[in-house]
């Protein structure tokens, strides 16, 4: 008997089909990779199996877990299955734990809910489970906010596997984590599957993660499974066009012209950014140095990458470069002038920025025209607004009439195009791209990378491309810098650094990055 059998699962909101006739089987100990772009129905499938979909959605179809029909159970009996027979891990570890309860209590809760275990025995069990997920050194009495993102994700996993469920569903469990932590969490999940013989549904948009982890794969598009099979077969011989398109986008490399050596536009010398220590009863803790003496220069039209894991100081450096924060040492010069927190508008207009979350960086009540023209306040003689906005909208592949719409009317990729238009409209020398494509689906990401390459060639604008995603940095940059604990530990031509990294840390980052196997069809 198969472990899980989903038969004809369909989900609807009113007349809108979200999931159409999804069916698949899983054997015990098997890892199923569920891939597809956002909105393809991956998470809906997972929540449908858990029966945790919002009540406005109507659900049809059968879900059999070891022959037992979960879809027929009463809500009370279903509660007894969740956490005991089926566990689930979510994408966002920073918010997936209750901030007010200790991690020990949160793991013990799973045990106490489903078994007649006393408080003490449940804590004992929680300790064992936390040890198992690699948190031996973390006390039960710690609170989530005292832990890093990777540690929190281990706690969430501990909650899910405390009672050794038969099936574990992990919904983008590593998307919010940086590359080294992602590698560790994936290794942990694989070890748990092997040791407990449980089935794992791994939901991800990253084909490389599936290639590394899964036995079988199901590709979803628009609420349907369009292709399924063994990972090795599907990745090497995809039969569906959509799978082929996803694979092509995953390893997309924008075409970029070779560049001649050009003048320096941004020069950073020995920059130090430190924060005052936390206040104590008397005095303060020692200051925290987030950036410790960073030097580099960026040439006209150059694409420079900055990689490193979270907490390495990338974003702090970015804020200093934008003149949003003072530096405690060194100097930043932009086009020969000193950039600091007191920089004049005329200097600020020479550097633009695009952030990770396009939606969060726009005022939802403004029209796109007003949003894109916002940097005009940096200009003394702003050109007429409408023609300028229409021109830049065309440059980023949108329509002039989009200027009259509001931001909620656009998809994630279109929003990022609008963010790029906003940075581009005052023709800066440098655009800082802070994880600018990290939240995008692979196909959209490929399009945005093409757009960036084209704009760079056309307007001679330089990019500082900050990302924890090494494959993206490799595709788009000329040179790359690797940052660790506030310092740049390695830098050089991108291909040279990726092909033959000198530093152990760089090698470690590269090794942790999941890659599609060589020789697969595209």
């Amino acid at each position, binding site marked *: 008997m198969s472990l899980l059998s989903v038969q004809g699962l369909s989900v609807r909101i009113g007349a809108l089909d979200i999931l159409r006739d999804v069916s698949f089987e899983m054997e015990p100990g098997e890892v199923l990779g569920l891939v597809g772009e956002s909105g393809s129905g991956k998470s809906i499938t997972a929540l449908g199996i858990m029966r*945790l979909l919002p009540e406005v959605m109507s659900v049809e179809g059968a879900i059999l877990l070891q022959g037992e029909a979960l879809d027929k159970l009463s809500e009370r009996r279903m509660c007894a299955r969740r956490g005991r027979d089926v566990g689930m891990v979510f994408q966002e570890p920073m918010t997936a734990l209750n*901030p007010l309860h200790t991690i020990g209590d949160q793991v013990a809760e799973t045990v106490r809910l489903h078994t007649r275990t006393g408080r003490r025995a449940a804590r004992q069990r929680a300790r064992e489970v936390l040890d198992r997920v690699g948190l031996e050194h973390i006390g039960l009495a710690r609170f989530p906010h005292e832990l890093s993102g990777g540690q929190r994700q281990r706690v969430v996993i501990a909650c899910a596997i405390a009672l050794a469920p038969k099936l574990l569903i992990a919904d983008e469990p590593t998307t919010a984590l940086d590359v080294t932590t992602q590698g560790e969490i994936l290794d942990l999940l694989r070890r748990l599957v092997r040791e407990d013989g449980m089935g794992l549904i791994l939901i991800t948009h990253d084909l490389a993660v599936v290639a590394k982890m899964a036995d079988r794969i199901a590709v979803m598009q628009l609420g349907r499974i369009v292709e399924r099979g063994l990972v090795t077969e599907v990745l090497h011989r995809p039969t569906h066009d959509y799978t082929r398109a996803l694979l092509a986008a995953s390893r997309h490399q924008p075409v970029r012209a070779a560049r001649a050596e050009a003048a320096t536009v941004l020069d950073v010398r020995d920059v130090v950014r430190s924060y005052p220590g936390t206040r104590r009863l008397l005095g303060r803790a020692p200051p925290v140095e987030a950036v410790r003496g960073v030097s580099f220069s960026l040439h006209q039209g150059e694409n420079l990458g900055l990689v490193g894991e979270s907490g390495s100081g990338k974003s702090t450096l970015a804020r200093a470069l934008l003149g949003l924060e003072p530096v405690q040492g060194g100097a930043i010069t932009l086009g020969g002038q000193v950039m600091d927190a007191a920089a004049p508008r005329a200097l600020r207009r020479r550097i633009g920025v695009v952030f990770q979350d396009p939606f969060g960086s726009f005022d939802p009540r403004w029209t796109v025209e007003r949003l894109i023209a916002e940097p005009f306040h940096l200009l003394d003689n702003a050109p007429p607004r409408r023609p300028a906005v229409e021109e830049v909208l065309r440059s980023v592949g949108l329509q002039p009439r989009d200027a009259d719409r509001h931001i909620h009317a656009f998809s994630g990729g279109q929003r990022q195009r609008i963010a790029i238009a906003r940075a581009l409209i005052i023709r800066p020398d440098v655009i800082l791209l802070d994880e600018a494509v990290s939240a995008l689906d692979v196909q959209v990401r490929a399009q945005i990378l093409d757009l960036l390459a084209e704009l760079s060639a056309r307007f001679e604008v330089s990019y500082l491309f900050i990302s924890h995603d090494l494959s993206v940095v490799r595709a788009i940059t000329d040179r790359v810098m690797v940052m660790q604990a506030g310092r740049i530990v390695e830098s050089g031509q991108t291909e040279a650094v990726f092909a033959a990294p000198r530093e152990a840390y760089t090698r470690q980052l590269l090794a942790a990055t999941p890659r599609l196997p060589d020789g697969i069809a595209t």
Partner: protein
Amino acid sequence: MLMRFMQRLFSLIVTLIVASILIFCVIEVLPGDPAAFMLGMNAEPEAVAALRAQMGLDAGLVARYFTWIGGWLTGDFGTSYTYRVPVAELIADRVWVSLPLALYALGLSTVIAFPIGIVAAMRRGRAADYGIMGATQLGIAIPNFWFAMFLVVIFAINLRWVQAGGFPGWHDPVAAIRALTLPAISLALPQASILARIMRSALIDTLDEDYVRTARAKGLSRSGVVRAHALRNAMIPVLTIIGLQFSFLLAGAIIIENVFYLPGLGRLLFQAINQRDLIVVESTVMLLVMAVVVVTFLVDLAYAIVDPRLRR
């Protein structure tokens, strides 16, 4: 935690000192000489001057401020100009009406608001939610003195369950509580309505949080999630409002005290202002400020008990 406690304690003391100076200065610039007022329109200037000297009004500003504060620290608030009794006694009598009334009303408000706020949040968008939201809208809109008179008509005049007004004193606790019941209900109605709405929206916000979904995935039922996870997370805004409501109830019951002829702090203050009994005004206002500041301090500490992220 100790760090936070010390910080808050320090800011509490500074606030009280600043408040005492402000109160003192405002009372000083108020028009109307208490001595002249006490002696009437036709008093001789010499008599007024003599009385001023006797009352200590002729000393310098700074000296009088320190006399006042020194008195406060030793429990001597001076003597009322009009009643000729120690201010401390006057206030103490009134506190024993106003404080229990405020606590009674706050207790009622909380006991009513919590369950209906929780039910509205859990049944968001359904009939029960709309019904509760409509009722709380009404509860906020009805003026509480009108509601108080409505209660008097029903329960005191028609049903004769309680007295229409007055306060018998605490020597008969049952009678005292009966006397405070209608005022407490009238005070609690708008407060409960506000608190229920805050409870509902805070709980709806927390029910949308990721950790609620995690808890559901562990096998908690919908109501189990509210009990074990959502409720405590929703407490920060609710505690804030409870703190504000207590301060308001302590001093803001003037109208209700008048409707029910209760000898509370609000009426004392009202009468003292009319009679230019500034020494009573000064000390009553200072006491109310103290109550507000202390409650804020306690609410601040309660935040830290609820939320471990604030325990630093």
